[in-house]
C-alpha cells in the first residue's frame, strides 16, 4: 500500500534529541496489581515532543495513554527507561506543566474566578495579582459574565473553558491533555478545539493531547502517535503538514485532511479491534 502522502509523512522513531521539550526514552512501566501480579501498562515507549510542537496520541482504550501523560507529570515513575522534561529528568511535579483532565477536575466549592485563580494562589502569587490575572483569563475564554458562578451552574462546555483558563493561567511550557473534550457534544467540542488552538498559538507551549478520536488528533496535531493495543508502545508516528491557523469546523471537509485520516486509520483500525476483543476477554 503506497498511500504515503506529502501531508502525512511517516516518521521513523529515533532516540530523542537532548533539547526536546518532552523526551520519553525507551520506557517500560509495570503496575503491581492488588493481587500481587505485575501488569505491563506500556513497554519500550519512545516519544519526543519538540518545543512548541502539538503532538496527539491516539490508541485504543486501555493501551496506556493516560499512563504516558502521568509519566511526564511525575505522578508515575518508569520501571525502566527515562523521562526528561525541558532537558531535565523528571523528579517531582514540574511547575512548567499544565494538565487538562478528561473528567471534571474543577473544585465545585469554588466559584469560577476562585477556580481560575487557584494555580497562582497555590504558587504564592499575592491575592490581588492572582485575581487580576484570573479575571484576564476568564475574559479570554469568554466567561466574564460568569465569574461568580459555581461550576454546577455552568454547561459542560463552559466548565471546560474554565478548566482551560485554570490551566493556562500558569502559562505552562508543557501542556498535557487527557481526552479533554471527549464528554462534550460535537458542536461544543469543535468550538473548544478552536479555543484551544487559539490559546496555544498565544502561548507556544509544547502539547501532548491524548484522544481516542483520530479525526480530532489529525485536526489539531503537528504530529500523531499511534499506539498499539496494550501493553502500549508506539506503532507509528505521522507528521501532519496541514497549514495553520486551522478552522475546526471546516478542516473536516478538507480533502487533504480526509486522505491523512484514512492513512492513519488503516494503522489504527487493527489495534482498536485487538483492544476490543481483549477488552471482551478480560471483562473491561
Amino acid at each position, binding site marked *: 500500500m503506497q498511500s504515503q502522502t506529502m501531508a502525512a509523512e511517516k516518521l521513523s522513531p529515533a532516540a530523542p534529541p537532548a533539547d526536546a521539550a518532552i523526551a520519553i526514552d525507551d520506557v517500560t512501566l509495570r503496575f503491581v496489581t492488588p493481587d500481587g501480579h505485575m501488569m505491563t501498562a506500556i513497554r519500550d515507549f519512545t516519544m519526543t515532543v519538540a518545543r512548541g510542537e502539538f503532538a496527539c496520541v491516539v490508541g485504543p482504550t486501555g493501551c496506556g495513554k493516560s499512563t504516558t501523560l502521568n509519566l511526564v507529570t511525575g505522578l508515575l515513575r518508569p520501571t525502566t527507561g527515562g523521562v526528561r522534561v525541558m532537558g531535565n529528568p523528571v523528579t517531582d511535579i514540574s511547575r512548567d506543566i499544565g*494538565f487538562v483532565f478528561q473528567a471534571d477536575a474543577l473544585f465545585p466549592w469554588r466559584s469560577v474566578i476562585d477556580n481560575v485563580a*487557584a494555580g497562582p494562589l497555590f504558587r504564592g502569587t499575592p491575592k490581588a495579582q492572582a485575581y487580576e490575572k484570573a479575571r484576564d483569563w476568564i475574559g479570554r475564554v469568554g466567561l466574564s459574565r460568569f465569574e461568580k458562578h459555581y461550576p454546577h451552574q455552568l454547561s459542560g462546555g463552559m466548565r471546560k473553558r474554565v478548566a482551560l483558563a485554570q490551566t493556562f493561567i500558569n502559562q505552562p511550557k508543557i501542556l498535557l491533555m487527557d481526552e479533554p473534550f471527549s464528554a462534550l457534544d460535537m458542536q461544543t467540542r469543535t468550538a473548544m478545539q478552536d479555543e484551544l488552538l487559539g490559546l496555544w498559538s498565544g502561548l507556544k507551549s509544547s502539547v501532548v493531547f491524548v484522544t481516542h478520536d483520530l479525526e480530532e488528533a489529525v485536526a489539531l496535531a503537528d504530529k500523531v502517535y499511534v499506539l498499539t493495543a496494550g501493553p502500549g508502545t508506539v506503532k507509528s508516528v505521522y507528521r501532519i503538514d496541514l497549514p495553520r491557523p486551522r478552522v475546526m469546523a471546516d478542516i473536516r471537509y478538507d480533502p487533504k485532511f480526509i486522505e491523512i485520516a484514512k492513512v492513519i486509520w488503516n494503522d489504527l483500525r487493527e489495534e482498536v479491534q485487538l483492544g476490543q476483543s481483549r477488552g471482551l476477554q478480560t471483562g473491561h
Partner: protein
Amino acid sequence: MTAISPTEQAATRATSIVAAEAQARARLRKRHALVIGLRLAILVVFLGLWELCADYNIIDPFFFSSPSGIWEQIWSWVTEGTSQGPLWLQIYVTLEETFLGFAIGAVGGIVAGIILGRNKLLADVFSIYIKIANSVPRVVLGSVFIIALGLGMASKVALAVVMVFFVVFANAFQGVREADRAMIANAQILGASPMQITRSVIIPSAMSWILASLHVSFGFALVGAVVGEFLGAKQGMGLLISTAQGAFNANGVFAAMIILAVMALVVEFLITRFENYVVKWRPAPFNEQGT
C-alpha cells in the same frame, strides 16, 4: 427547503408566559398551605385522641400521662421551678454538657479522620483499635466515667464526647477517602503543597460527609449528657427524668422528654442553617428546586 416563519406574536407570547408563571406560583402556594394544614391537623387529632382516651380511662393516665397533664407539669416547672431548682438551670446544665461534648467530640473526630484519611500507614495501623473501641457499647462507659470523674459535669461531657467522636470520625475518614483523585491531581499540578491540598481540596470535599455526621451526632451528644445525668448527677434534665421516674410521675417523664425534643430540634435547625451557609456551592436537590 422553505423556511417557516414564526406566526405567533412575541407580545402575546410574553403575556401568556407571565400568566402561566403566576398560575404556577399560586399552585405552589396552595400546595404549601395544604402541607402545613395537614401537618397541623394530624397533630391536633393525635393530641385530641390521647386526651380523650386518657379522660375516659381507655389508657391509664397514671402510666401514659395526657397532653393536659404534661402541659400542667411543664407550666409548674416554668412558674414554680423543679425540685432541683429552676427549669432554665436544668436546661442550661444539660445544654452546656451537650455542647461541650459535641464540640470536643466533633473536633477530635474531624482531626483524627483527616489525619488517618490522609495517611495510609496510620490508617492501617489504627483501624483495628478504632473498630474495637467502636464496638464497646458506649452507654456502659457512662458508669465508668461517673466512677472515675464523679457526679459533676466532666463525666457527662466525657460520655457525650465518646458518643460523638466515632460517628464524626467515621464520616470524616470516609469523606477524605472519597475525595476525587482527579481533583487532587489537578491541585497538585496547579502547584498545591500537601498542606494546601488538605486545606483546599480534602476538607471541602469531606465537608458534606462531616456535616451529615454533625446532624446525627448532636442527638448522640444529647443522649450522652442525659444518660450521664440519669446515671448520677446533681443537676440537669436527665436527673429530672430519673427523679420523675422514681416518683412514678409519668407527666414529669413526658414533659422532660418533650423539652429535650424541642432543644434537639432547635439545634438541628441551627446546624442546618450553618450547613446551608458552608456548602452554598452545592446544587439544590431536586425536591427543593423551584419552591
